[in-house]
C-alpha cells in the first residue's frame, strides 16, 4: 500500500516536471503541446477516495497552470476528467475486479479498455482546455482540428510511456 502512495507521489512530480520543462518546448517544432501529465489522473488507483481524486486532479492542473500563466485553466479541465473517470469506471468495471486490480493501466486492463478510457478522457480534457482558452465560437473548426491533433499527440505519448513501464507496473 505504501509502495503505491510513493509511486503516485513520484509520478506526480516527474510528470509535472516533464510537462513544464520538456513538453512545453515542443512548440519550437510548430506542433501543438501534448499534455502527458494527465497520465497521473489515468493511473490513480481504483480505490482512491472521491474527494482525494478531485483534490489531486485539481492540484496537478493548478501546478501546470502556475508554470504556464493560465491560472485555473488546466485545473478546470483536470477536474472535469476526474469526474468523467468516476463515471466511466463505475459503468465499465465490475466491483470484484476493482477489489483485485489496484491500478488501471495497460497491463492490468488490456488494450481495448485502456484505449477507450484514455481516448475519452484525453479528448474531453483537451476540448475543455482549448474551449476555455479561446472562448470564441467563430473559430470552431480551428479549435476542433487543434483538439484532434493534440489528442493524438498526447495519446501517442501516453502509450509510449505505458509500454516503457509495461512489466514493472503490474502492481504499482
Amino acid at each position, binding site marked *: 500500500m505504501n509502495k503505491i502512495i510513493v509511486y503516485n507521489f513520484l509520478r506526480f512530480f516527474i510528470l509535472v516536471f516533464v510537462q513544464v520543462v520538456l513538453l512545453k518546448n515542443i512548440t519550437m517544432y510548430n506542433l501543438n503541446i501534448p499534455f502527458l501529465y494527465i497520465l497521473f489522473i489515468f493511473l490513480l488507483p481504483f480505490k482512491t477516495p472521491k474527494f482525494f481524486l478531485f483534490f489531486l486532479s485539481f492540484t496537478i*492542473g493548478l501546478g501546470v497552470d502556475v508554470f504556464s500563466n493560465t491560472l485555473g485553466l488546466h485545473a478546470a479541465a483536470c477536474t472535469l476528467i476526474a469526474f468523467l473517470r468516476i463515471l466511466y469506471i463505475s459503468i465499465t468495471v465490475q466491483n470484484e475486479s476493482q477489489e483485485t486490480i489496484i491500478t488501471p493501466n495497460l497491463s492490468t486492463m488490456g488494450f481495448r479498455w485502456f484505449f477507450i478510457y484514455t481516448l475519452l478522457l484525453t479528448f474531453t480534457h483537451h476540448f475543455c482546455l482549448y474551449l*476555455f482558452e479561446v472562448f470564441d465560437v467563430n473559430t470552431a473548426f480551428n479549435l476542433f482540428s487543434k483538439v484532434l491533433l493534440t489528442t493524438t499527440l498526447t495519446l501517442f505519448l501516453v502509450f509510449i510511456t505505458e509500454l516503457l513501464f509495461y512489466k514493472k507496473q503490474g502492481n504499482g
Partner: protein
Amino acid sequence: MNNLWRFINKYSALFLFTIFFIFSIVLIIRNNDFQRVSTLNTSNEWIGKFYTQVNNITKYIQLDEVNKQLVAENTLLRNQLKNAYFDDSLVLNTVNDTINRVQYQYISAEVVNKSVNARNNYITINRGSKHGIKKGMGVVCPTGVVGIVWNVSPDFASIQSVLHEDTKITSSIEGTPYFGPLLWDGENPNVATLADIPNQINLKKGTKISTSGLSVTFPKGIAVGKVLKAGVKGGGSFLSVTVQLATNFYALQYVYVIKNTFAPEQQNLENLNKKPTDE
C-alpha cells in the same frame, strides 16, 4: 437529515465535481482581469528562479541564432559610430548638448521563460522593479517589437507579447502617414494583422511596417514587420494588412525594456484632456 446525508453521499462525485469546477472557473475569470496583480504566475519569485535554472541549461542550444542576431546588431551600431565616418571638420568643439535630452533608456534583459503556441502568450524576463521596470513599458529585441510589460516582481517581470489578444501596438506603414493597431488572431506566431488602414493607398508586398511613436510605450521607427498581403475585409472602407512579424518569437533570448523618461509628463497632460474644462 439522514435522507439528506444519504442523498449527498450517493451523488458525492457530482457535488465534489461542482465545487472544484466552480473554483477553477473563478480562478480563470479572476486571472483574466488585467488589473488584478496575481502572484500565481511566472513573475512569481520561486517560479522565476526555477525557470532561470532551466534556462541556464537550454540557452546553449540557441547560442548560434543569438550570436547571429548580436553580430547583425553590432554591425548596425558600428556603422553609426563616429569613427565609421570620415571627419572633414577642422576644428573640434566639445558641445554641451542642451538641445537633445535623453528620452528613451534601454534596459537589457534575458528571457527566462516564454510561450508561443497558446492563444495568449507571455514572456518572463530576469529584470524587475529593482532594475526600474514598471508595468506598461515597451519591450523590443534586436530584430523588432516584442510586447508590453504586464506584471512585475522585484527580480522578474512578465511580458504580454505581441502574440496576445489584448496587445494592440500602434504601428504605421513606412513612407505613409497612416497607422493602425497591430492585432494577432491566434493562429500563426509569425503573422499578425494591421487594421484600420484606409483603403485608398496601394500597398506593395514587402513594405516595411514600424512603430508609430504615437503612444508613450515605443519610440518611432522600431521594426514591426513587412507587408505580406493587403485586402479589404468584409467590404468596409479599411484595409486589413497581413504582416510578417520581424521578431522570431521561437528564438527570443535577449530583449530590451524601453523606459520613456517623458512618459509621466505626456500621460498627465493627456489625462487633463479627459476632464471637462471649467469655465
